[in-house]
């Protein structure tokens, strides 16, 4: 920022200085500050759009009702809480899947595709082999197949990255759409002349838990978050991931086989995504989806949302639980807001989610950097910062 050579003695008004690792206290303070800023901007937005008829408290209580149910109304609370639980768990699972890859600085933005491939292979089993097989065998095969196919879809870009340095962000992004079109093929083929694809026969569904066919999904998804926490923090493989992420060269000098770590980690990442897709098809949707519809019901678009969740939680898979619920609150809450107030019916939800995300993303700056303002010049007493500035 000292591009003007004439003024080298004059320190810029604001300088950016890197800080050490953020302490827990600072992390919490920064997050809270970001959320407050987001609340403020969203509040102004709500007041302007609602033309003063919608107060912020009113809007927040609508959002609360849409996510956690109307307080005191047991039925509404039961419906809403279960719904929030399964979608949060699904978002959590995908974020957990992305955590090891991101920690390795491998930008897997192909979770959508990996989920879809897992879901699709499970669906093929349910559709074509569902009736001719004993149920335990069928479920065993479904789980294996979705894990393997998700892993394969994740390993393909990893191999090219490991051996030829192919840009993984763009590769995984493109793989998403290939997967979507393959699923479209099966959707249209099975649908035939019907107006929509009917759900698969009930004998192929996952066995219910808590009276819900997606009960197991919630349990497995949350368990994965706990397992991944220990995998990343306490195991040798988790440590290798961290080293490769910090510096591939350091890892190489330390004797870590970087190629192996990249491929193995992406296999894990893809496998969890695939499992999520398989369980969603078998336990929750009992169906596959068509990509041209507004929301892809197999992935719910979470392959992309999870990227944001994983990054915001700083790869801490337990912290992801909180963020996944926050995103659910925003998504479902703004949906309810749109139902209650027509001014918010279309698009307003995404605008508010965007504002909150921008605030959190931008706020993270203050975790790693601080601003140093120019001090009043004391001719006799040259401060350390001034010396450094004139050196630069």
């Amino acid at each position, binding site marked *: 920022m000292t591009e003007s050579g004439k003024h080298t003695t004059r320190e810029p008004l604001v300088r950016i200085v890197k800080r050490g690792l953020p302490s827990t206290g600072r992390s919490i303070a920064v997050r809270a500050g970001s959320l407050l800023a987001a609340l403020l901007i969203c509040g102004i937005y709500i007041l302007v759009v609602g033309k003063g008829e919608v107060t912020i408290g009113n809007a927040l209580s609508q959002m609360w009702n849409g996510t956690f149910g109307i307080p005191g109304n047991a039925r509404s609370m039961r419906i809403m809480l279960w719904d929030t639980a399964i979608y949060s768990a699904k978002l959590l699972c995908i974020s957990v899947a992305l955590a090891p890859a991101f920690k390795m600085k491998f930008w897997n933005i192909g979770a959508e595709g990996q989920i879809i491939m897992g879901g699709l292979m499970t669906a093929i089993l349910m559709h074509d082999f569902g009736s001719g097989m004993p149920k335990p065998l069928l479920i065993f095969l479904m789980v294996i197949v979705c894990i393997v196919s998700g892993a394969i879809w994740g390993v393909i870009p990893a191999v090219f990255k490991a051996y030829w340095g192919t840009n993984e962000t763009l590769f995984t992004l493109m793989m998403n759409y290939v997967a979507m*079109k393959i699923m479209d093929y099966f959707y249209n083929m099975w649908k035939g002349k019907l107006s929509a694809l009917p759900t698969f026969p009930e004998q192929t569904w996952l066995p219910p838990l808590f009276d819900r066919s997606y009960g197991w999904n919630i349990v497995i998804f949350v368990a994965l978050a706990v397992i991944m926490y220990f995998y990343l923090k306490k195991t040798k493989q988790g440590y290798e991931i961290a080293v490769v992420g910090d510096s591939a060269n350091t890892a190489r000098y330390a004797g870590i086989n970087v190629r192996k770590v990249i491929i193995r980690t992406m296999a894990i990442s893809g496998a969890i995504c695939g499992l999520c897709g398989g369980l969603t098809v078998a336990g929750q949707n009992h169906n596959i989806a068509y990509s041209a519809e507004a929301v892809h019901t197999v992935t719910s678009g979470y392959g992309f949302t999870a990227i944001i969740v994983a990054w915001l939680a700083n790869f801490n898979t337990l912290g992801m639980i909180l963020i996944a619920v926050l995103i659910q609150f925003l998504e479902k809450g703004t949906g309810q807001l749109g139902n209650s107030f027509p001014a918010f019916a279309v698009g307003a939800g995404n605008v508010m989610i965007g504002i909150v995300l921008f605030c959190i993303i931008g706020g993270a700056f203050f975790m790693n950097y601080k601003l140093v303002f120019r001090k009043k010049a004391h001719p006799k007493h040259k401060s350390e910062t001034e010396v450094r500035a004139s050196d630069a």
Partner: protein
Amino acid sequence: MLSTILSWITRAILFGVVIMFGAMGETLTEKSGNMNLGTPGIMCIGGAFGFGCTYLYEMNAQNPNAFLSIFIAIFCAFFFSALAGALFCLLTTTLRANQNVTGLAMTIFGSGLAKFFGMFIIPEGVVTVKATFANRLFSKRMPVELGSGKIATVIEEVFFGHGFMLYVAIVIAIVMAVFLKRTRVGLNLRAVGENSGTADAAGINVSRYKYLATSVGAGIAGLGGAYYILDYNYGGWSTGAAGGIQALGWLAVALVIFAIWRPLNLIWGSFLFGLCYWLYNYIGVFGVRMTSAQSALLEAIPYVITILVLIISSVQKKRENQPPAALGRSYFREDR
């Protein structure tokens, strides 16, 4: 037969113009080292504001002026998209946020803002509104008559049967190619994208280049959105149209890779993508019959060839075919 092929080519060209704008904007952005995955959202913003402003103008003016109508559409699409690009740059360059995360958040925000703004304009209970006047201007064919022969018709249809934005897009692509390859400023910009630290040491203001490239790039991408609504979609805005722009936005990101970051390749690449995209409708030309299920697989072709280009260029390791080396990384001077 001939007319079928002609209509295929025409549709491919119309389609190509939309993603060419998006891809040109993204190319310029990526040359500065910023990978803006918010391009689909930004194109939505361009579409909504470009359409919305010119629609409001033609609704409220007694005698809408042709020049003003076009100017308002293009200016508003460019301006609001560029603002979104500047916001992206504020987060990634000044605040050093992760580019992928910021870009995806921008896509969510942009498509939401587009739908929200569109709904502001649409009267209650109406699904689609049309900017008829602006549509007539944007889809007006070039005034070229070449007689009635068969070859003359083909040339006329293929080269002159389109609205003016096609030619604007081609001119921008050529100018951008010259700018990046032959000018000092273009060289500096590429230096920023290849190695920001070296560029900084050479006295180039890295932040300023990133801001300008990203904002102008976003503005150009936004024109693609406006073109989508005002010509490709026959001037009609609906909430569904925003979804259509978003889907094409991802193809625009793919096209940048396919063209290995060269503006001139974007011209034919975009038409090739257009041919691929519409292939399912015209596959009968080759005497092949397909079910609607199989045609879904045809739609994957652009993505598959993009992957192939990505693989081939990285395996070959030719230095001139690589992505900008600092693509996706934030630059901080004190980092090593």
